[in-house]
């Protein structure tokens, strides 16, 4: 994929321009615009039902906006076909969700290796790369555990490893600590941000917790379907 920066604002890697989206009669986004630079960690905040997860899904090519444009690395994402968007998500993006994202029948090791297997990497190589993440994310000894045998924090770290193992350009994290206690949540966020910075991965993080958002380089707030920068007093705080 070519990186035609000329189509993006100020060298942004991911951009949403005037995005509109509705669920039936409920409007979720009404002209949302946001830019994310390469290597940046952006926190998208907002109250429940404000449309922040919908914005993340639009940016990731999961949902197609009714109006507006989504760009990634110089390419128009919203006009791609479903198969092309799937390939984009598989090859260039990583995901971490709040819960329930691990395939319950697979071991932790196989869950982490899954994106590589989906991309056609050979089994032995995929599992080898997956194993590297166990030490990195303090998951030693959990290789053969299945999701039901992991604690919430362990499962979320496995999910994080799965999101990063294929070295994606962008990691989309939707309330990654929403199901964890505050201590475990902070631990996961530490690991997430340090691993992302280490790899140079751009992170778009949806959260409603200021403490989680504080790990980001920049924060925006979604309210009534529109994106606005966080007030300066909040930023300073």
């Amino acid at each position, binding site marked *: 994929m070519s990186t035609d920066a000329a189509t993006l604002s100020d060298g942004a890697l991911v951009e949403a321009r005037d995005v509109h989206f509705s669920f039936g009669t409920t409007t979720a986004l009404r002209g949302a615009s946001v830019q994310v630079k390469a290597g940046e960690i952006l926190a998208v905040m907002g109250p429940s039902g404000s449309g922040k997860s919908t914005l993340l*899904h639009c940016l990731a090519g999961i949902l197609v906006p009714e109006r507006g444009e989504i760009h990634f690395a110089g390419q128009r994402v919203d006009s791609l076909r479903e198969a092309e968007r799937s390939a984009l998500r598989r090859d260039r993006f990583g995901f971490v969700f709040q819960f329930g994202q691990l*395939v319950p029948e697979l071991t932790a090791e196989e869950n982490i290796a*899954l994106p590589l297997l989906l991309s056609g990497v050979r089994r032995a190589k995929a599992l080898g790369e997956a194993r590297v993440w166990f030490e990195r994310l303090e998951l030693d000894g959990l290789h053969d555990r299945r999701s039901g045998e992991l604690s919430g924090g362990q499962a979320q770290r496995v999910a994080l490893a799965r999101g990063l193992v294929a070295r994606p350009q962008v990691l989309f994290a939707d309330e990654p600590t929403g199901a964890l206690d505050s201590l475990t949540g902070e631990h996961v966020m530490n690991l997430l941000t340090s691993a992302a910075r280490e790899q140079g991965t751009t992170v778009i993080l949806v959260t409603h917790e200021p403490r989680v958002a504080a790990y980001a380089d920049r924060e925006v707030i979604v309210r009534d379907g529109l994106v606005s920068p966080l007030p300066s007093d909040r930023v300073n705080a």
Partner: protein
Amino acid sequence: MIRLALRLTFAGGREALTRLALIAIAVMVGVGLLLATVATLNAVQKQNARYAWLETGYPGSNAPVATSTTGTTAADPLWWRLRADYFDGALIGRIDVATRGPKSPVPPGISKLPGPGEFYVSPAMAKLLRDTPAAELGDRYPGVEAGTIGEAALPAPDSLVIIVGRRAADLLQENGVRRVTSISTTKPNKCNGECAPGVGNNGNGLTLILSVVVAGLLFPVLIFIGAATRLSAARREQRFAAIRLVGATPRQVSVIATVESAVAATAGVVAGFGLFYAVRVPIASIPFTGDPFFPSDLSLSLMNVLLIALGIPLAAAVAARLALRRVSISPLGVSRRVTPRPPQPRRLIPLIAGIAELGYFAYVGNIGAKSHTSSNTEAVAYLLGVLLVMAGLVIAGPWLTLLVSRISASRATRPATLIAARRLADNPHASFRAISGLVLAVFVGTCSIGIITTIVAYDSNASTASSSSGDALLVDSFGGQQPASGNNVSVSTTTRVALTSIPGVTGVASIYDASGGIYQQGRPGQAASCAEIAHIPALGHCEPGAATALISLPLGGGVVSHQTARHPLAWLDAGLTTAQLQALPLDTIVVGTDGSTAAVERARTVLDLHIPNDYAAQTISEIRTSDARLLDGYRQLANVVILTSLPIAGCSLAVSIAGGLAERKRPFSLLRLTGAPLAMLRRVIMLEAAAPLAVTAVVSAGAGLVAAQLFLRAQLAETLQPPRLQYYVVVLTGLLASLAIIASTLPLLRRISGPEAARNE
């Protein structure tokens, strides 16, 4: 708590009602099939009971020939003779009666005995008589129709039965007449001793057929019902977690689950009874036993009704409680016991034991075809072995599934294979349960078809010579017996003229018993005039210059026989003069015809009127049909089991797959969000069902062929012949139907794995 559970069930919103309706519909289908199966088994018994009166006069029944002592009872004696007659290949039951007084016993289905010159007929027989020229049929039954035989005496709605009133003096001139003072109520399968030949189903055959049908059909039906009651289990468990959160105890949650399942199952059972009664008439018309049933025979006993009406909801309630034991429902959510104990190799023991038992009886234990063991012991021994193999397949199935899944997982290079294999290994019991019905269907089908194929192969060997003669030869065999009148049997000139004047009759041959004197080992034991043989091409021809020849009638070799076809170029000269030939006892009269129904039936009518015999004359085809009744039984058995169990098992498979999809809604949708192609998830679903299906189908097909070989060896002293095209078509159809059923659930995958499923709830 029960009241709360009922309120949650009925007032739990649209989702709760939809779940209730889904389970109820699935249970309705399962119960409908179960009731149809049970009612069909009852109907087989009732149909057999309708044959009971035809056992009258036979020592094995409760109405044997009356001796002078028994003749002193209040009833007047009745002269009674049962004979098989034929029309165009169809069997006609003919009973000749001559009453000795007003108190003679009256058979069921008629209000009084027909007097001389009268007859009672079944509705189908009445129609046949009306539609057929008298010379072809009606002339055999002189007299007028006095009435119709009621259902009580008819095995099937289309049975051809006639009760002919005769004068005692006339009837006693014929063979096989018995003096009775009561009418038998002994079913053919309960007849102990000498019984009416070819009437109803005998005990062993019936026991074997019914037992295999019961095992082959009921098991898939029960699995289907079980799968239906577990529908939406995952969703229900999440709801239970929420109920726990507000303070319900595990026991209270268990009560709610039990009530919900029982309510859905009860609704399904009620609807299932409705479904059964709606399809009862069409089912009755299917000739499972070779004859259709009266719809009223497809009935349920009080015990059947109680067992099903109470048992299914009870079983559903127990299953719901047991299912909850496999998960831990805490106020914070549902956690599964992720490491259930894997099945052990010892699960193979019953399967091996079943095959070993059959093998012992076939090769070591001296029972079966070449022994004097009672046929009842043979049936029980074989049945036990077959049921053990069936149970063994079901018990070994999870272990085989685990084995396959472990091998697949260790070698998987594609994510679909890996996920499917891990899923199978995670709960091989559940994975196998979904396909166990199909596995049993494959086993029973393979075993039945293997047996049938072999029997057909031997039967066709035995009757190759007769295949060309088919309907062209009408054979009236006397077997050396002389009529009750004491006169020697012979074909008079009048009879010969009457026969040869029938259009389509080519000639008449008298076949004499030559086994005394001129018979030599290895040579045919009958003799005939070459002049007569010359008029009947189907009989072959004599050596040039011979006046008489030693001949062997091409009657076939029975159901299974090592007798090979004998179709000589020319029959050997018997070296007898015509006078010497005619001095021999008459064995058989053969009438050569053009095979047309009119010629055959007119000839049969003439023979019946001119030379009354214990047995009606039969064409070669009819003799073979008679021999093949056992074969037909097995064929029907195989068809019933395969055609019924495959759709039932398919439904179970579809329900299990749909249930599994619903359980994995969130991980699958998240996988799709992260870029996993839908095609990959489809492959996961197909592999999860197809892999164990293929492996266990191969194992059950192998077990079926082994069981068939051991059956043939033990019961018939034969060797299994390779299955023919029909077998492969049936198995392939079954597997393709299963794959189609699996594929039918795939649209559900697209829907449940959409982006909305991944949204936080």
